[in-house]
């Protein structure tokens, strides 16, 4: 399998072994990864609950979403970069792991849904059923967190 041989090659690279041998790197990068997911959760919570008309309904939804969207993107960049370091350090733990790929699919879905649906959801004539998408996105971020922790066990 290509993924298998790529993982083996990555594992054998000097940078991969440096990440593993330097004992503080993995815990530090994992901590940064959790801080970044906390920023995603905080921004998503306020934005999605506003879109679902649960929170801060006296503020225009567009203002609330625009306030937190940059934080969501910045946090996702930090998650991507710290995540790459963790993959390089332990390729077998992630690349050969079904839960890891499920997590990637969920992140991609949440990212695409946020990018594509934000504008239509903010329109005055958005159907009430569209609010369900906000709840779905919150559920997806929670699933991402569960997948992230379960990668360590599968």
């Amino acid at each position, binding site marked *: 399998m290509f993924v298998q041989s790529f993982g083996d090659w990555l594992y054998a690279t000097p940078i991969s072994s440096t990440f593993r041998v330097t004992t503080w790197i993995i*815990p*530090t990068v994992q*901590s940064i990864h*959790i801080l970044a*997911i*906390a920023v995603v959760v905080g*921004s998503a919570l306020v934005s999605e609950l*506003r879109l679902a008309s649960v929170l801060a309904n006296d503020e225009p939804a567009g203002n609330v979403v625009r306030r937190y969207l940059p934080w969501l993107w910045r946090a996702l960049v930090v998650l991507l970069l710290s995540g790459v370091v963790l993959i390089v350090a332990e390729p077998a733990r992630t690349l050969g792991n079904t839960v890891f790929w499920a997590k990637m699919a969920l992140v991609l879905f949440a990212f695409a849904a946020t990018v594509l649906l934000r504008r239509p959801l903010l329109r005055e004539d958005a159907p009430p059923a569209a609010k369900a998408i906000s709840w779905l996105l919150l559920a997806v971020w929670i699933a991402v967190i569960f997948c992230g*922790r379960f990668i360590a066990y599968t």
Partner: protein
Amino acid sequence: MTLQTTLQQIYDLPLSNAIRENVNAFPLLESLHVLAITLVFGTILIVDLRLVGYASHRRSTNRLITELLPFTWVAFGLAIISGGLLFASNAMAYAANTEFRLKLLMIAAAGINMAIFHVSTQRTIDQWDEDATPPFAARAAGVLSLLLWTAVIFLGRWIGFTLDVLF
């Protein structure tokens, strides 16, 4: 009754034993714990940044606090319950772990910081509620809170690398 016997009794509880014996229990509790701490940190971050002077979705700092604090408290409760169950499953090892002890210390410090803000700086909030930059005492409380909760997350992750696993 010494601390060691209390810890042993906690470890011997049927609930603690069930967590040790069910392979999915520990990762599920850990996931809930991570979810809880991301909600705690995510909501506190928005409030702390507002205290430091970064705009949030609310001009009024007081409204922001009253709007987000219920989420923080519910999430903190979930973190205590999930964390307490993780602790019970391996009580002696956690109690002896330096990072775990430091983490509890940092949570206590964050609580004291919040209490001081509540009984002093927040009393005068009517005078600076909508100011873009709150007074020094509020900014200091915000920065300190961010540093302490960041330390809590780092120490929490570090426990996973330093704990003596007894089962």
